[in-house]
């Protein structure tokens, strides 16, 4: 019966649940909310990128009546932002490690009066480190070894080596970070723009020394995240909560664009060195990779970003001998953090830019070289994972080449100032094997008189989580979509489904919900929901993540099945370069991506289009300029995200081979589209005559590389 009952929502682009509120301006974001007696919060930050803090002075001049001041001594619990390690203080007090380090918090009812208060931070400046290669402090080091790469490199007839660099990237969610902290019920409630309610919950329990039931975190409508609202909300929520508890009044803390760009996390800048060995016919024999990620001042999520980076560093290629060494290091800049792709775009940029250079050196067509070496089902990765049947490197490559008319344009455009290039990539869905086991995520279904309510901590941040999860539950139950509601992501209501990150919500949380729905259906039998409730009372079914038996991962040795499965993609970028200004105009992007079953094809397409546009921005125009450890272009006037005029036509094709452990065969999707555009851009530039090995490929950089 379970298999027969399909209501037919999955695979259809049903209208998204929260759509009407958004297009009519009724959706309420954090800055749209007000609470009685609410104050505004402000953060005083350090003036130098490193050194020792001596004192913070407010004034000169009288301070406004009713001003609330919070310093490190006002912190009831541990002065840390609990993430992976406890190195980042909520308020710095001796050592200062970056120039946006918060040192004092203020709150007042009058926002203008609050921001008019002069503040002087007295420091003994130290000598900062900005170059990650010169950093004395390593946050995390990871090694992956397969076979004897050094020996193979010594013996091979063709060896290609190169260094590839990527810059920081700012998320530019259009809604800056913001929360409101409300003291109530002897604890604190946070209403915030955030991705991971339980991350904030955990951090606040530590910071405020409150038991779990006294901290409540409610996600309000969130205006974009892209990873930027994964870890930073713990900082801003902590600050607002400290002020609110001291003031005994609600405190709103919403950053303006400048503060958001300067102080919050960015994509880790990277330096990747590659050496690869080939036989003369282009068979990849060995690969050596050294990966350095600039973590910024504190550990935050850098170990995990590095992990995903090194796990993707050898690209979608079979290779008998691999040696990867990765390091995340400290510099005196604000901490870098999660950003869509999470380390993989950096290393995939390197390997894919490298492959076109290898093709050139070998005198082989870049598509042929990839076809020869790309993973097939059953091939074994650098960590020893035997790849499943849904390994789709070749299908996406062939389809993208065909759809874009790559080979014809490659010949026709030679020497015209136009270029066409491609990239082949993959992206592990969900956390690593061990990571998902550690998370042990839960998701619940609660029977309602009309049907069922989904209780998950997974957040809707634009990608369509609520709609997609409702489709999975509706079809598993065989009920119409209208019978399924989704509860707000409120830690007072929902279990910990793990963070909304790592392309895991659909595949992992959707899978747990599917199991819960089957269980609920079994319990319900032939009864209608209202009948069941009348007879037996409330019914809540909770499912928990169970690792498929065949996934084996050894975190210590970095061996085994790194991810349950992978999404696969091939992007082709066509562009032209202005002969005088060296400005690059992308003309078209062809994206072919294999994501398993698309639960909602329209939302899936939106993920590919939006992620690809972010990838193009990172590749061409988005440059974070740091001066003395501070972002010098912290405004949208000169940090250039793509506009309608910069974003080319996109031809998106979604292939769905299916993954047997995903709900209805779905895999992860959110991050995959971010991986492909940057290397495809530099490969198209190489075709147009520019040897670029660094992004963003700004006109200035192209002028330099042309005059070389």
């Amino acid at each position: 019966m379970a298999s027969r009952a399909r209501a037919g929502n999955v695979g259809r682009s049903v209208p998204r649940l929260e759509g009407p509120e958004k297009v009519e301006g009724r959706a309420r974001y954090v800055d749209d909310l007000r609470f009685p007696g609410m104050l505004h919060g402000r953060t005083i930050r350090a003036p130098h990128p490193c050194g020792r803090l001596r004192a913070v002075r407010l004034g000169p001049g009288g301070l406004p009546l009713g001003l609330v001041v919070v310093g490190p001594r006002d912190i009831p619990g541990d002065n840390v932002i609990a993430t992976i390690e406890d190195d980042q203080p909520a308020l710095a007090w001796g050592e200062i490690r970056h120039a946006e380090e918060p040192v004092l918090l203020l709150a007042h009812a009058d926002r203008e009066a609050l921001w008019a208060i002069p503040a002087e931070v007295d420091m003994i400046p130290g000598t900062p480190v900005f170059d990650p290669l010169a950093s004395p402090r390593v946050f995390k080091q990871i090694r992956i070894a397969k076979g004897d790469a050094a020996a193979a490199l010594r013996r091979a007839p063709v060896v290609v080596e190169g260094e590839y660099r990527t810059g920081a990237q700012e998320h530019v969610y259009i809604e800056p970070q913001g929360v409101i902290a409300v003291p109530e019920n002897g604890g604190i409630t946070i209403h915030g723009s955030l991705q991971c309610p339980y991350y904030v919950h955990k951090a606040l329990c530590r910071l405020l020394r409150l038991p779990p039931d006294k901290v409540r975190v409610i996600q309000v409508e969130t205006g974009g995240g892209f990873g930027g609202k994964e870890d930073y909300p713990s900082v801003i929520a902590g600050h607002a909560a400290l002020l609110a508890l001291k003031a005994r009044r609600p405190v709103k803390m919403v950053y303006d664009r400048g503060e958001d760009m300067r102080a919050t996390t960015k994509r880790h800048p990277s330096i990747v060195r590659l050496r690869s060995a080939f036989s003369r016919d282009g068979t990849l024999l060995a690969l050596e990779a050294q990966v350095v990620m600039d973590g910024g001042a504190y550990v935050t999520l850098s170990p995990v970003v590095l992990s995903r980076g090194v796990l993707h560093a050898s690209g979608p290629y079979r290779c008998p001998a691999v040696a990867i060494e990765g390091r995340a290091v400290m510099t005196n800049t604000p901490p870098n953090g999660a950003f869509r792709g999470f380390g993989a775009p950096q290393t995939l940029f390197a390997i894919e830019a490298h492959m076109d250079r290898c093709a050139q050196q070998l005198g082989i067509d870049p598509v042929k070289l990839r076809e020869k070496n790309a993973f097939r089902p059953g091939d074994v990765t650098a960590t020893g994972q035997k790849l499943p049947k849904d390994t789709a490197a070749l299908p996406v490559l062939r389809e993208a080449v065909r759809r874009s008319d790559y080979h014809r344009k490659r010949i026709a455009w030679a020497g015209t100032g136009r270029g066409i290039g491609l990239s082949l990539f993959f992206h592990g869905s969900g956390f690593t094997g061990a990571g998902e086991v550690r998370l042990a995520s839960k998701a619940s279904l609660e029977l309602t008189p009309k049907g069922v309510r989904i209780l998950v901590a997974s957040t809707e941040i634009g990608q369509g989580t609520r709609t997609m999860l409702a489709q999975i539950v509706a079809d598993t139950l065989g009920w119409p979509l209208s019978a399924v509601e989704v509860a707000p992501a409120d830690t007072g209501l929902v279990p910990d489904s793990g963070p909304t990150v790592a392309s895991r919500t659909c595949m992992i949380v959707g899978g747990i919900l599917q199991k819960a729905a089957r269980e609920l259906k079994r319990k319900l039998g032939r009864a209608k929901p209202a009948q069941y409730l009348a007879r037996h009372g409330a019914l809540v079914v909770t499912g928990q993540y169970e690792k498929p038996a065949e996934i084996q991962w050894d975190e210590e040795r970095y061996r085994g099945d790194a991810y349950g499965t992978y999404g696969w993609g091939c992007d082709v970028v066509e562009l032209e370069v202005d002969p005088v200004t060296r400005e690059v105009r992308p003309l078209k992007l062809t994206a072919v991506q294999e994501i398993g079953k698309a639960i909602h094809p329209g939302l899936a397409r939106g993920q590919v289009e939006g992620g690809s546009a972010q990838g193009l921005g990172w590749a061409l125009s988005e440059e974070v300029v740091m001066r003395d450890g501070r972002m010098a272009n912290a405004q949208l006037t000169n940090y250039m995200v793509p506009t309608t005029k910069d974003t080319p036509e996109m031809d998106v094709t979604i292939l769905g081979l299916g993954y047997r452990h995903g709900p209805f065969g779905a895999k992860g999707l959110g991050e995959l589209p971010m991986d492909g555009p940057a290397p495809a851009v530099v490969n198209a530039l190489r075709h147009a005559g520019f040897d670029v090995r660094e992004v963003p490929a700004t006109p200035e950089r192209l002028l330099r590389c042309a005059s070389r």
Partner: protein
Amino acid sequence: MRFTLNGKPVAVDAPPMKRLLDVLREECGLTGTKEGCGEGECGACTVLLDGAPVNSCLVPVAHAEGAKVTTIEGLRGHDKLQRAFVTEGGAQCGICTPGFVVAASTLPRGASLEAVQEGLAGNLCRCTGYAGIYRAVAAARGGGKSAKKKAKR
């Protein structure tokens, strides 16, 4: 300060240099108009001033004296466009959406893709890559084909 807001006369007591954006959100309680950057780059605060789209973060309220101001809450006769933003994937996180809908409401029917891109160049969206927004405009108002491509062929 007096002006017509979404078809109704209003009088607000605000300093003349206060941003129209803040007057709308704080004094008038209309929070559909969003602040994304505060410097006229992102267009999330787009409203119509006498029918023309403006960034309300750059307009002092004095400038609106006697004018007709239309916000997303007061946009009439564009239900089809708004529905199309939902069905065609023109809205993801939704924070830029009111600005886009207001700006798109001024585009002529049957506008070419290039004209739509030009008309919406002052609005930033970080979620959609704009493709869903073009589809929404084309679905609601026709057009959306590339004039350049046609010419080339």
